[in-house]
């Protein structure tokens, strides 16, 4: 362990926070402010790549900063799962920043500096969760993330935002304080250890309490939005679209899933989950969420709500895959974190672009838009393919692995349910595309001309392109995912 390694390890947390002060000082100069945000984003991505490289070379990066509770440090560590999450958030943050700039200006939003500041704090907390080496450290950053996103959800400060904010806090904080905290402390008092990988080796499964612990983590990390803890997510869509895209499609919800995976795989461990068939319970609950959310999706007219329900389903997909506890399942699930992020952020970017440029939020108004906004709808189509899980997008690969894992685990019913949910998603998405391309545009007084602002167009094309690129070059992510899966199932740190 040397100084540079420690510096690199903490950089993804500190860099977004260091941006805050210049951001505040440049509050009256939007161009400068956005370039500062972007610089922060690129700097952060650079450090993430450095950590990824170091991890790939087999370097052990670990730093216990101070002791929080006896035997539990405030500890940072890089591992395969953390790398996937860091790459996802680090890669998409600068793109989303560029998009936010275009969106907020196009929409003439107020309090843009507060928006960017809270965004930075949320990213710092996201990276903190990814880097945590034990459950308590993870919990610390998880709570910071919850609270820093409250001002983003309630950005408009109207009564709708107030109601959404209340619901958001009730579910997120209720889950983390009411369920995760007691579950975590129960594990702590049983093992005296909360370090990922080593706590699970000490923990003994004992009858039905073990199922309760698993459920407390599954529902307590309510950012993962497993039904019925999903109710905050559609409401949180009142936030500006960049928030929905990066946070409620990528960072926040993925952190929920990430935390559940950490709890199930690294704190409770495969033996614990297999004893008393706890893992089947998790699988069943997630399968239900997948199907129900896909069914709800079909009936939505508001595009952002429709996407929210799709997100809920995809998150449960990931947990379901991991709860199978075979190599293909865990690898497929963790890989899906990245693949889904690319597809879903594209869709949200498109939804925001349509809202700003064409002032349309409802699917039923999209007639003929595909011909006036070809770039946006091209990207939208790619995003849909990625979410449904069709080639040539990265979503196909992870979904393929997840379905294979179900068959390997001898659960063809679950595999069937997953396919049904994909069909439902196709049923929800294809009419939108059909409507946009093949229906005639209605007669309007001020017809929309051209595609959206380049500040929004470039990001959404980029993410759509990458969705396709990862289909052909998935090796880095696949390697990380498989490395993680083997580590969990073989045991060891």
């Amino acid at each position, binding site marked *: 362990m040397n100084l540079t390694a420690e510096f690199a390890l903490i950089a993804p947390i500190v860099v977004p926070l260091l941006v805050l002060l210049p951001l505040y000082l440049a509050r009256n100069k939007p161009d400068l402010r956005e370039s500062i945000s972007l610089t922060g984003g690129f700097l952060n991505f650079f450090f993430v790549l450095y950590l990824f490289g170091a991890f790939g070379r087999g370097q052990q990066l670990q730093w216990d900063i101070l*002791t929080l509770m006896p035997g539990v440090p405030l500890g940072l560590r890089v591992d395969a799962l953390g790398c996937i999450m860091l790459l996802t958030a680090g890669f998409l943050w600068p793109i989303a920043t560029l998009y936010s700039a275009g969106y907020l200006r196009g929409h003439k939003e107020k309090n843009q500096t507060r928006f960017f500041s809270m965004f930075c704090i949320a990213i710092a907390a996201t990276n903190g969760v990814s880097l945590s080496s034990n459950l308590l450290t993870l919990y610390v950053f998880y*709570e910071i993330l919850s609270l820093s996103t409250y001002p983003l959800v309630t950005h408009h400060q109207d009564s709708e935002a107030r109601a959404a904010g209340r619901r958001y806090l009730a579910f997120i904080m209720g889950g983390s*304080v009411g369920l995760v905290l007691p579950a975590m402390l129960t594990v702590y008092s049983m093992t005296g250890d909360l370090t990922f990988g080593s706590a699970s080796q000490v923990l003994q499964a004992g009858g039905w309490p073990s199922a309760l612990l698993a459920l407390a983590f599954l529902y307590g990390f309510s950012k993962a939005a497993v039904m019925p803890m999903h109710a905050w997510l559609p409401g949180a869509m009142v936030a500006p679209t960049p928030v929905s895209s990066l946070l409620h499609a990528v960072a926040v919800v993925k952190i929920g899933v990430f935390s559940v995976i950490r709890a199930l795989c690294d704190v409770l461990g495969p033996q614990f989950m297999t004893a008393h068939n706890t893992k089947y319970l998790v699988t069943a609950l997630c399968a239900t969420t997948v199907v129900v959310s896909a069914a709800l999706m079909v009936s939505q007219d508001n595009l952002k709500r429709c996407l929210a329900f799709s997100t809920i389903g995809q998150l449960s997909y990931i947990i379901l895959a991991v709860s199978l506890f075979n190599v293909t399942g865990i690898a497929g699930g963790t890989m899906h974190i990245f693949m889904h992020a690319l597809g879903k952020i594209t869709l949200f970017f498109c939804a925001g672009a349509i809202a700003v440029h064409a002032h349309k939020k409802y699917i039923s108004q999209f007639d003929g838009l595909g011909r006036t906004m070809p770039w946006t709808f091209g990207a939208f189509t790619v995003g849909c393919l990625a979410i449904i899980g069709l080639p040539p997008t990265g979503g196909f690969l992870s979904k393929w692995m997840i379905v294979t894992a179900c068959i390997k685990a001898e659960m063809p019913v679950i595999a069937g349910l997953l396919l049904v949910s994909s069909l439902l998603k196709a049923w929800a998405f294809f009419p939108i595309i059909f409507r946009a391309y093949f229906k005639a545009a209605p007669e309007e007084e001020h017809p929309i001309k051209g595609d959206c602002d380049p500040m929004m167009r470039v990001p959404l094309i980029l993410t759509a392109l990458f969705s396709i690129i990862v289909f052909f070059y998935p090796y880095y992510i696949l390697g990380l995912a498989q490395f993680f899966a083997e580590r969990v199932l073989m045991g060891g740190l």
Partner: protein
Amino acid sequence: MSDQLIILAIIYPLFVGVVTSLMPCRERLLAIWGMVHLALANLLSLGLLVQTLTEHQVTYHLSGWAPPLGIELRATVFSGLISWLISAVALVGFIGGRDTWKDQVGERLPHFLALFFLLVAAFQGLCLSNDAFNLYVMLEISSLATYGLIAFGGGRAYLATFHYIVMGTIGASFYLIGVGYLYIKTGTLNISDLAQILAGVPWTEAYILALGFLIIGLLLKMAVFPLHLWLPNAYTYAPDATSILVAPLSTKLAVFLMFRVMFDIFGGVIDDNIPSWSLFMVLLASFGILAGTSLSLAQRDLKKIFACLIVAEAGYMLGGLWLHDPRGNVGALFHLVNDAVATLVLFLVVVAVQESVGGRNLGHLSGLFRKSPLTAAALIVVAFNLIGVPPFAGFFSKATLITGAIASGRLEFVVALLLASLGNLVIFFRILERAYFPSEEPFEEKWTRSKRGDVLGALALCIGLFLIVLGLQSNTIMDLFIRPVVPL
């Protein structure tokens, strides 16, 4: 000089108080006078703290009389910490309450400040004395000074003071009766001496009675539900300069006294002879936590909301002390420190809010984020601490308490603590929502930054941010100050 620090910590504020009562009523002069002396008192306590850290224990025999007969002062590492905490809270409270002197205290300021210093002296005595009867004297001095300080509020404060006098006197008398029983049975009042004798004699009902009186008396002073009735009104209608000093310390020192009765006097004999008391006490604490939180939810006056929270917090510490687990006891004592600081911030925020928006009802709060962002920030910080968001100190005290409760199988206490966290979430977001969202009235007045409010808010924020340091260093603090005094 250094062996006199411990007695100086007590008598220095006492003498300053006497002199203050003779001073002319000149606000500026009194403010400087008070700040200088409180700063010096801080140095004394800090010196004592360093001394306890190097020598582990500091003892002092009053006028040279040896312990069983004479009065002994004794500072452990923890009481050293509390002694400094008292001086520090007094200094900050003095500065924070200064703005309200003109409106709320008026002509009799020297007398008010004399009582203020007397109270500080009594608090120091409560924390440093090692003599059961002397502790009673200090308890009474602190109560009498508090009665006077609260009654300065006028109006509804008179009735509140009267309630407090009645219940406080009953509490103190119970404590005195308990000490009397112990004296009859053992012939000594020195705490270390008592512990030695009690460990060797057979257990009789007389001790149960003595302990019962002591505990009930202290429960009253701690304001544990259902013996809390005196507290909310007394703290709400007191002048702000009073509540800012009394609220953070008064009930906490009663908790510390209970800790000393349980562990320094009765040592291990409670667990051996009357294990069922713990069952009852933790249950009482759980009820108290829920009752305090619900009471607080029902209020609309910011100061009363916070006063009711003190009732709930007393439950945390009571439960922690009575858990059959050292972690619970450590958690209770750490919570004592954390809660003293947090309550100080809360009451500073009350003053700052009044300065910046001109009232302290929930309805006044709209636009606080514009009028005084620093006050709002301080409110956020202390809210997170009370909700138990990591890495604030409140999270770690709560986590330690919960771990202790899980280890000793007291699920009702776990549930009560978690519900209280969620209750605090509702309480504080109800406040923050009003401060954050613009008012729904059609025409809004033009918002102006309040300078005075911002200065006070900055003070509160600095101390609030100290809670993060306290939280991140919680394990070190427990290792240094708390674990040495808690028997394993």
